[in-house]
């Protein structure tokens, strides 16, 4: 039994999607005023740094960028062994800020629910907007993304994997179908 995989986006494709998302963020927020980036560990963390670089190149502005770990806020603690924890590093105040929350794949929405609670415990942002590279559907909560790299219809048995190199640059995104 081996799995079959198809490439959804290669490195160039990911780059183009992130460029578009970066422009959309600037357009919707009319610039960089009070804008901060927060990536969800670990995939969203890499992507938020990528968006940071692009916005710096377009606008010459370095946005505050942080990373959040949602393990402590998961709703499935106690139904599996305690998951590994990563650090939350948000070295700036969230009060009154427009937070761009970044994740790699949007699926059930449970990670985002946890991230929203985690952000609220850290401060009172003016708004929170969600940017994701892939929206694969199958939401279990009323959550939607403001910025989407690509919508990909998937079945629940499939898996979407984002592969990063050691610098955190996305190399490719693959759809993995289990073959039985």
């Amino acid at each position, binding site marked *: 039994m081996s799995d079959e995989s198809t490439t959804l986006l290669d490195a160039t494709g990911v780059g183009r999607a992130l460029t578009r998302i970066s422009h959309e963020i600037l357009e919707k927020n009319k610039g960089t005023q009070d804008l901060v980036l927060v990536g969800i560990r670990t995939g969203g963390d890499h992507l938020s740094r990528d968006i940071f670089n692009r916005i710096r190149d377009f606008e010459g502005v370095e946005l505050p960028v942080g990373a959040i770990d949602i393990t402590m*806020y998961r709703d499935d603690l106690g139904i599996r062994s305690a998951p590994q924890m990563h*650090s939350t590093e948000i070295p700036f105040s969230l009060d009154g800020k427009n937070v761009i929350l970044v994740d790699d794949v949007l699926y059930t929405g*449970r990670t985002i629910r946890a991230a929203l609670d985690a952000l609220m415990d850290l401060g009172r942002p003016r708004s929170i907007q969600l940017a994701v590279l892939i929206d694969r559907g199958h939401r279990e909560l009323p959550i939607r993304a403001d910025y989407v790299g690509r919508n990909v219809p998937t079945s629940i048995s499939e898996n979407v994997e984002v592969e990063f190199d050691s610098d955190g640059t996305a190399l490719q995104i693959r759809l993995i179908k289990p073959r039985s």
Partner: protein
Amino acid sequence: MDFTQKHILGIDHLSVAEIDLILNTAANFKEINNRDIKKVPTLRGKTIINLFFEASTRTRTSFEIAGKRLSADTINISASASSVVKGETLEDTAMNLEAMHPDIIVMRHSASGAPHYLAKRLPRSSIINAGDGTHEHPSQALLDMMTIREHKGRLDGLKVAIVGDITHSRVVRSNLIGLTRMGADVRVAGPGTMIPPGIERLGATVCRSLNEALEGADVVMMLRIQLERQGKSLLPTLREYSRFFGLNPSNLALAKPDALVMHPGPMNRGVEISTSVADGPQSVILDQVENGVAVRMALLYLVGGANNDESTIQSSQSKGVTA
């Protein structure tokens, strides 16, 4: 890796990978203690009983704060204010508490092995040993290791001197097992009456004098002379002890210039440690206390945030739970 221990009874049953996981988890929890809102919902709905048969301020408060910051409900029971004074046995006390469905029992007892005894008899609760007799005090050793690693970046290859009543100290036993397991080189020193025969078998080098132990040390861990336990019969006078085994600025100079000074507390200032050293730039004594909360949060999370029922773990993994 997955943490699969149901109880934390001692350092002895933890592997290097498990100790690493606990220390890393603690480092990530530490940030919560500096927030405005010092609370996360991780252990919401869990009940933790702190069952203390021996006096304790630091450890009990630390476990209680750790539980509360994880949103668990924590209840403190001290022996002096419980049915123990009416003659109830340890087992009966524990069985009665278990009937109220706590998830974790944090326990301190003057008898070595008391938590192990309960762990075998209570079917549901996880037991965390908060000090049993002269046996182990795992959370203290873990917070010590966390503090050393934070300042030195590693444990492997460090020279650690532990000075004081080696025989009666559960802090020493847990640290000795943990530090040597993590690759540190541990020497112990103290009056001859306070060095147990055979301590070398746990991996310690026995030094005959304080100066010998301090020579080139990266970490100096001073122990409290436990006046309430056995201090008097094993020592001629406190002044003599202080003269031969007290840490002061001049003998500390024998250790490395950046050596850390540690003490598990409570300190007898002027006996085992001079005030100028305890409050000096090399002292990390309050860092130990701060890290204690983070380490205990990690322990509560790892045993309480998990479901140790194998079949449930299997089925949730095969469903590929990704939030």
